[in-house]
């Protein structure tokens, strides 16, 4: 059979199976096994356990559970609230200070957490009720946190960047650095929009929030120190010659656990178990998808689908930006329905050769891809962050959350467009710190 046609059939089967309610990882295994059985015969099934094991046989993967532990241990303390409060006391004179504080807290928390929903929940628990109390519209309150939370996978560390790095064999240290400036750019855009919308609403109450004395401002600073200690410690370990990026994750996890236990007094074994249980749960889920996606890409390669698609795209005589447009559209649609890790693992092996042949930088592409995935996190029908917000503030309707998030989606689209015109936004920092790409 023509590999391209076969590819189409595989795609259809995959969509059908993945939407059937079966877990994503098992769904990928089922589709792969089915096609391997038909086209490669019964004996190819012998390989499945070896491929599953082999995909996990990678030191870099260790960083995934580690960065998840970092986020969830800090999220289970009042550190998020402290951070949020400190920012609020200092930004009180700024118009719309509260929403700005929220976004800033999300950005800072992202620098410690590898996942988006965790960031969203850590800041939202405190931020959303506070904003609503002060009269911010529900949509702005919920939307800003939903969007701010997505920064968790763009600002390093990032679980999805690790997955991308492994799937495409790009340097994880470089990928992390590439997310920094685009992350700040997004924060800036989010803040600009929030300011504009509060200003437009004309409610003077929002602009002038509570006034804090200098004493109150300085009082809270020590409570932000643990955050800075973690961020500085991790950065120093990673770029200061102590450890490789994957090893650094373990340092970060240990630091966060220690700070949670010592400073935030998280020493009740039950509470610690909750942190560990939730980290285990999320890590195992992600790692199983990685292993299963390995079998899926083996199937695609063995049936020559990957190669045929790459060849076919190569023969198409289209402008590289048209090609990129289609790739992004595809990613956006995939992101509407599937979790980021699954999209990256399924798409990267097929897309990356196409992208690099067309002359795009894989590091730059990782950033654009990540922002696409961020949009998926706050868009229907499946948006993890939306549900987290819904959990924090059940009385805000999903429609309101969605409406509040839409302008932030627009900010992300603007960021992607800016990145297309100025790829340096992503590539400059890694090039300066780590030298030109290999």
């Amino acid at each position, binding site marked *: 059979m023509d590999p391209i046609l076969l590819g189409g059939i595989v795609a259809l089967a995959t969509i059908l199976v993945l939407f059937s309610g079966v877990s994503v990882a098992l769904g990928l295994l089922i589709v792969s096994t089915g096609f391997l059985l038909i086209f490669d015969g019964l004996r*190819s099934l*012998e390989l499945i356990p070896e491929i599953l094991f*082999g995909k996990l046989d990678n030191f870099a993967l260790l960083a995934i559970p580690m960065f998840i532990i970092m986020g969830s241990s800090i999220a289970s303390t009042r550190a998020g609230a402290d951070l949020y409060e400190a920012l609020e006391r200092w930004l009180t004179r700024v118009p719309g200070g509260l929403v700005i504080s929220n976004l800033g807290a999300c950005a800072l928390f992202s620098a410690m957490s590898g996942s988006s929903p965790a960031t969203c929940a850590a800041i939202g628990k405190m931020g959303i009720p506070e904003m609503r109390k002060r009269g911010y519209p529900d949509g702005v309150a919920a939307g800003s946190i939903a969007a701010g939370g997505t920064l968790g996978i763009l600002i390093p560390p990032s679980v999805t960047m690790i997955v991308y790095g492994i799937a495409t064999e790009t340097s994880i240290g470089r990928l992390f650095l590439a997310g920094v400036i685009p992350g700040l750019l997004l924060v800036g855009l989010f803040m600009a929009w929030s300011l504009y919308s509060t200003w437009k609403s004309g409610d003077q109450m929002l602009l002038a929030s509570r006034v804090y004395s200098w004493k109150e401002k300085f009082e809270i600073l020590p409570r932000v120190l643990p955050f800075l200690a973690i961020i500085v410690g991790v950065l120093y370990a990673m770029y200061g010659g102590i450890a490789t990026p994957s090893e650094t994750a373990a340092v970060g996890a240990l630091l966060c656990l220690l700070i949670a236990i010592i400073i935030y007094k998280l020493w009740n074994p039950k509470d610690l178990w909750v942190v560990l249980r939730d980290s285990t749960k999320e890590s195992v889920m992600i790692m199983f998808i990685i292993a299963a996606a390995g079998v899926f890409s*083996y199937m695609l390669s063995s049936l020559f689908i990957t190669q045929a698609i790459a060849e076919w795209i190569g023969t198409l005589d289209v402008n590289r930006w048209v090609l990129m447009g289609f790739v992004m559209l595809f990613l956006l649609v995939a992101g509407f329905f599937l979790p980021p890790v699954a999209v990256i693992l399924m798409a990267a092996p097929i897309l990356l050769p196409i992208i690099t042949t067309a002359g795009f930088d894989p590091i730059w592409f990782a950033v654009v891809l990540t922002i696409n995935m961020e949009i998926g996190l706050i868009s229907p029908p499946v948006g993890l962050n939306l549900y987290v917000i819904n959990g924090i503030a059940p009385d805000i309707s999903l429609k309101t959350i969605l409406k509040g998030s839409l302008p932030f989606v627009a900010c992300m689209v603007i960021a992607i467009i800016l990145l297309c015109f100025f790829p340096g936004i992503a590539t400059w920092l890694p090039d300066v710190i*780590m030298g030109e790409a*290999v």
Partner: protein
Amino acid sequence: TELRLSHQWSNQDIRHQVAQMVADGVAEADVDLEIKIFPSRSLFKPREQYRPLTRGQLDMTVLPLSYAGGQQPAFNLTLMPGLVKNHDHAARLSASPYMAALEEKMAEDDVMVLVHGYLAGGFVGKDKCITSPADVDGLQTRAAGKAFEQMLAGANASITSMASSEIYNAMQTGILNAANTSSSSFVSYRIYEQVSCYTPATEDFALWFMYQPLLMNKSTFEGLSEEQQNALLAAAEKAEAFYLEEAKKQDAASVKVFEDAGVEIAAMTAEDFEEWRALAQETSYKAFVEDVPDGQALLDMALAVE
């Protein structure tokens, strides 16, 4: 008939070219035989290739044989320090009773060799040149291969294990002071940007030689028609000659790249080489002989090749 060949290298790599030559030669012979190449680990990860090969789920591969050393400990001899002196010596080893003994071991796994070939490598130092064992004392070192780790540990180096793709970053941040791998990896990972000195394989002395043959599943080969077998063997013979010539050029080419990058080039003297070899005898050779039942006999056969 369609055969599947998997390897871990890019389309520009010499080992891909060897595979491609065999594929082209067979295609030209027009004997209803097609070799489909899956390069750049697009089908199997490097170390996952040997087992499917032994069971015929994969037909052919270009593989550093020492990757399978955990299943056939005798294969560890194919990445042993100081056992191969230079490329011509490597070619004589490939045609010796020593190799015949190894091929017997492969036959136990239903595997046969189509194209023999060795590639050489050297050392890089971040701050200084590495020529004799005394030079690695106290350095954080990444070595390619178990036997090299044993030897370097014997020279009092601190061994750290990481993928060759991580060498660049580790050198840059200073986690690593020295590394040892193949000439082509040094170039493809642009290690020359991070080091001050390179000790390449030369025509006289090289410590690091790795046997990287093109292997085939034996039963699959025997299942082919005589015509097809002959076409394969003829193409393999041509490829082997090409492999040897190109392998020699790789070392010189890598020296050129390092020189152009302003890296100092150091050379091992005959004394240095003997020092390393004496050290290897006490460390890696000894460990090998203890580990493998007929290890001493195999080692003697290899050492007997002039």
